[in-house]
């Protein structure tokens, strides 16, 4: 038994007790929220279908390997596994796209393998940069975004570098 395996049951118990003390209808909140989860899935399913069929074709044709081979030297120097290269391109553009590509990398290389873990950390440590910028500035009527995108991409680059290093350092595999 590890600390992180205890974290989930402890969190569930804590939130339930805290909410009950504040006279919140725990069960109704849980089920209503779960219903929202269904809408989330309903939103990502169509893009998962579109993207995964393209990803599978891409892999079956041998293009994925060629792409990996193209970027291996540069990525190897940075310590990033070349198998995660597709994620580097899609992560800033599309959230559900990154989820599709990332989960495919995890499945293909093994979810508990080094590559699978690096892909997971990359997925969990960033947001969809261009989407976020478009939503915020669109709503606020901003046309001159100045240095927002360079700074945000800088954050993404650091995130990719650290993801690969962190799995080696903290998980030893």
């Amino acid at each position, binding site marked *: 038994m590890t600390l992180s395996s205890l974290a989930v049951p402890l969190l569930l118990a804590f939130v339930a007790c805290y909410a009950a003390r504040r006279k919140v209808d725990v069960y109704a909140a*849980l089920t209503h929220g779960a219903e929202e989860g269904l809408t989330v899935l309903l939103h990502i399913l169509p893009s998962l279908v579109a993207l995964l069929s*393209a990803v599978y074709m891409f892999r079956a*044709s041998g293009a994925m390997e060629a792409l990996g081979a193209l970027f291996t030297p540069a990525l190897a120097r940075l310590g990033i596994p070349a198998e995660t290269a597709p994620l580097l391109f899609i992560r800033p553009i599309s959230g559900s796209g990154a989820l599709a590509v990332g989960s495919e990398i995890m499945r293909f290389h093994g979810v508990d393998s080094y590559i699978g873990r690096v892909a997971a950390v*990359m997925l969990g440590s*960033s947001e969809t940069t261009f989407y976020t910028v478009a939503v915020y500035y669109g709503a606020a*009527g901003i046309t001159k975004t100045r*240095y927002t995108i360079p700074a945000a991409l800088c*954050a993404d680059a*650091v995130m990719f570098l650290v993801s690969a290093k962190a799995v080696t350092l903290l998980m030893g595999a």
Partner: protein
Amino acid sequence: MAMSYLWTGMVVLSLFFGALTGNLGALGAAALKGAESAVELCFAMCGAVCLWTGVMELMERCALTDRLAALFRPLLRRLLPRSSRDSETLAAVSANLSANLLGLGNAATPLGIRAARRMSRGCGGRASDELCLLVVLNTASLQLLPTTLAGVRASLGAADPFDILPCVWLASFLSVAAGLFAAKLLARFWRD
């Protein structure tokens, strides 16, 4: 539009490489297999995702989010000194941050937009330095529990879906720090 180009590019490149490597016959089956595995993935992670959105809703209803937001105010007053003078902007930004931390994406975005609209008043379509900081903060992930990700990992048979958490925290923390640092640096010479 970016996604349309990406998708079309992938399919066309697949045809090209398939012809080159003689794998052309396998492409049709691969496309269908991909669509099938998308549905499988969705089903497999459905339970985990719904459980967590349920817990998130519970956190929101019992005002755990508000308590978290109160903790951020001192920090935000230093990061965004000008916008923080307007108490309503400060409230929206801190609520945006705490919703992000708890993974309440649906709640975080409207709050962030409200803050952005207030911060952009009278600026003539040009993002102020503080607004740039707010958006950079939101393009980085601040989520403490990446629950959808854990759902995917669980559905793929991970021994412990949350065991990557320390790595995720380290990577997001350093990425946020790098984004803010880059923004502060670029603000010195980027006039418009």
